[in-house]
């Protein structure tokens, strides 16, 4: 991987109101790399993504492309090239597929480029093209996940934050989705911070990973190193 990391998180504490949910969390995402965040329910994985996106109060250092994100408003953070696909997918259920995709491009000015990207998405994902004018809420879990990822792509992000893309999606579709993510990373060079409960799928595409337990990082390193260590694999990854 190249030079400076695209995302640097150092000694971060995050709060829901006055309750701390993350304690002294530090990690980086390499430019063009995929870092997986693993851990059980309630470990604080979603909280990390929310902290980066400015949705909750944060203390510590979070820098993206060298600039600090702490204290910035969420829409400005998104406009800086960070696409966050939240847990539950966050689709605009009452709007059509196309409207959802166009909203993804809200921060962009160039209408021609937006139209071209939209056409590319439809070419890559025929299921979205078929359902262009369909209301998003009526689509299946897997289709909505593809829609959510596509909407994130429409932002032309340099960093994608993904919150449990495998959740509520049939296993075969999960494979498909993770292939899509791998391709996005390889072909478009989009860096990714991938939160997943399904460690196996996540570690197939990630190069680096760390484990969260009750708001603390307990293990981190390259995926190769983590998988090579039997103790870590058994205790934390379960296989």
């Amino acid at each position: 991987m190249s030079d400076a990391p695209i995302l640097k998180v150092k000694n971060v504490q995050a709060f829901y109101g006055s309750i701390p949910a993350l304690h002294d969390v530090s990690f980086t995402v390499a430019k063009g790399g995929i870092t997986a965040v693993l851990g059980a329910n309630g470990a604080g994985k979603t909280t990390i993504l929310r902290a980066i996106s400015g949705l909750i109060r944060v203390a510590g250092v979070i820098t993206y492309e060298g600039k600090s994100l702490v204290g910035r408003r969420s829409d400005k953070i998104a406009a800086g090239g960070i696409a966050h696909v939240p847990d539950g997918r966050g689709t605009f259920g009452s709007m059509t597929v196309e409207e959802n995709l166009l909203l993804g491009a809200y921060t962009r000015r160039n209408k021609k480029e937006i139209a071209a990207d939209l056409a590319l998405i439809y070419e890559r994902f025929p299921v979205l093209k078929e359902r262009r004018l369909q209301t998003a809420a009526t689509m299946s879990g897997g289709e909505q996940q593809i829609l959510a990822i596509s909407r994130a792509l429409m932002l032309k992000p340099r960093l994608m934050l993904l919150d449990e893309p495998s959740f509520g999606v049939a296993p075969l579709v999960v494979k498909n989705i993770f292939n899509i993510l791998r391709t996005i990373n390889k072909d478009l060079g989009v860096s990714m911070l991938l939160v997943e409960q399904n460690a196996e799928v996540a570690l197939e595409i990630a190069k680096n990973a760390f484990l969260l337990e009750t708001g603390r990082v307990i293990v981190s390193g390259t995926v190769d190193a983590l998988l090579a260590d039997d103790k870590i694999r058994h205790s934390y990854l379960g296989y």
Partner: protein
Amino acid sequence: MEAFIQQVISGLVSGAIYASLALSLVMIFRSSGHLNFAQGEMAMFTTFICLSLIGWGLPYWVAVLVCLVLAFLIGSVLWSFVVKPIANVNLLSPIALLIGVMMIFNSLAGFIWGHDTQNFPSPFEFFSGWGSIYIADHDLGTILVILVVTIIVQLFFQFTKVGLAMRAAAENSTSSYLVGIPVGRMLSVGWGLATVLGTLAGVLVAPIIYVDPNMMLSALIYGFAAALLGGITSPLGAVFGGFIVGVAENLIGFYLIGTDIKMSVALILIIVTLLFKPAGIFGKEAAWRV
């Protein structure tokens, strides 16, 4: 037969006013999910401002334009500094707050302009000849203006980038932030535009019912009936609802229950709609996954 036509037409005219108020109620509901009980009084207040501007010598259209701009500012400032701080505390606080705002605008208007009924000019005098014996020029002009404005509002929400962003901000503010939409600003614009629509209602109805601080009190009830019946989330529904309420109140009042208590038609419509089809005729049903 003539009486029937007369009642229907006059119902359409008052319906147009209710529709305009309903439009502003729908706009605010779509923007921030609130029912603005102060909508009528704000409209009355800005109509008074318009009257003063005309009184100071400004030509009619200039005065209207200026007070529409002022209406936008009043609406967005009200949202940003008064409603927003308590917008999500609970369901009842914004309602109580807005009823308070309603009373403040009412008293303030009485304090500034007094409680005497005043005349308000109509811009449709040049229509002379369009109307027939059945419908006055101003009434016809009012209906046409409301129809045009409704179409513009519907097109705005469906086909413009800002309209889309406003709908998104109202539906899911977190997801909206995550695609880069400045949610606070969208809500502010929504309230501003809604107040502009309400002012339009005030300026159009003023020549008919004359201007005084209480002119919009009953109109607000009709506006709510119209918005609920048509669908509190649908601009087209609001207008449709407005015309139905206007015509129904007139016909039922004239033929059945007497014109004195015809407002009860609106009140009963509100109750019936909320009991049997709360989303209204064109509204979207609110649904959550549980």
